């Protein structure tokens, strides 16, 4: 079996995996990273979104072997020193989650969106989240949260 080395949320793991093992199952079933859920089998819902080498990917559509040597950040690795990431806080402030199932993926996608659009318009936010489905919120509050998160992240950058 191939051996892969991946760093997940700052910790490096070496695992022997079947080639067919999906990254999301490596995270969930082998590494105990159950914060990242699975919502579909066709790469449509985005619930499983994580950062792979700094870019959002759907972890159900990446083989663990493809992630060999990579750095993965999940929703569990976002906060620092016990406090939430500004985007997580913004989701809380704006009531951008109800059941919370889409939330890990939505937050990751939102953070990714801000990498090159730090001050996105409503339109850009909606387009940027097109690969992440939420069945509960109707998205209004998610859009508001991303805007608020963007502002807070912008301020954090300015003040640092």
């Amino acid at each position, binding site marked *: 079996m191939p051996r892969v080395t991946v760093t997940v949320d700052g910790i490096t793991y070496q695992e022997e995996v079947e*080639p067919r093992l999906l990254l999301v199952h490596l995270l969930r079933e082998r590494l105990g990273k159950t914060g990242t859920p699975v919502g579909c089998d066709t790469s449509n819902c985005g619930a499983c*979104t994580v950062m792979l080498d700094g870019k*959002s*990917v759907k972890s159900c559509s*990446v083989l663990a072997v493809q992630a060999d040597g990579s750095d993965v950040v999940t929703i569990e690795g976002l906060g620092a020193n016990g406090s939430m990431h500004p985007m997580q806080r913004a989701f809380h402030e704006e009531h951008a989650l109800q059941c919370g199932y889409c939330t890990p993926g939505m937050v990751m996608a939102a953070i*990714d969106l801000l990498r090159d659009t730090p001050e996105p318009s409503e339109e850009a936010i909606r387009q940027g989240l097109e690969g992440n489905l939420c069945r509960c919120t109707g998205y209004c509050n998610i859009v508001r949260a991303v805007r608020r998160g963007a502002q807070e992240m912008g301020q954090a950058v300015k003040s640092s």
Partner: protein
Amino acid sequence: MIPAQFGYTRPGSLAEACQELAADEEAKVLAGGQSLLPLLRMRLAYPTKLVDVGRLPELAGVHDRGDHVFIGAMATHDEVLRSGVVNADCPLVALATATVADPAVRHRGTFGGSLAHADPAGDVPAVVLALDGVLVARSADGERDIPAAEFFVDYLESSLRQGEILVGVKIPKLGAGWGFHYEKFQRTAQAWAIVGVAAAVRRSNGAIQESRIALTNMAPTPVRAHATETALAGMDLGGEVRQACAEAAADTSPPGDLHAQPDYRRHLARVLTHRAVRKAAGSV
């Protein structure tokens, strides 16, 4: 759902990859996996082995090669749509690529994978066809160039031979005076095109001198709208453009599926071609 078992190799060079493929008829190339993995998960494909070409340096990057842009097969959609060269010298590629799937899929899915997959609903194939791209394929036997017009054979079928790997695509630079547009019609933002129209139009003195138009999802392969291209030559942007664009569906055989019947697709091809041509002409 869960894929069936398969083997996996990640060769260190293109030559090695070609050998791996030559050695096993049931092996498949793995690029970004964004089309292949859903197929495997639904158990619609049972390859013996995946040959991962994702990290091969020979297939990477976007390069300015003077009279053409060379897009490496493993350039991701995301890389392509941000590439300075692409935006400067073949912006139609960037316009269409930006409509592919969603950001996360674009981070993994590749330009070459989209072409090798030969899905007529894909956005990239029609663009490469419209721009008369040339696809470069490599096997243990050597390298060959395949013009886009000969590349797409049938639904999910290209003229790549068993054991061949797509290395990249040469997109000829069109020079000054051209305008571009990709018009995509879909039911939801993330969905595939019901119909798409890739249009490049060269205007001078107000009139259309030349055009290149190709259609997405109007046949088992992407198709050129030659009749419209011919009819448009010499026209200014008045009323007859609509009539010229009404020829767009002439040589098509669109599918009928859950999202649209063939007659509706033909109608859309006409309307959207008109819109694409006007927008392309307006963007000159």
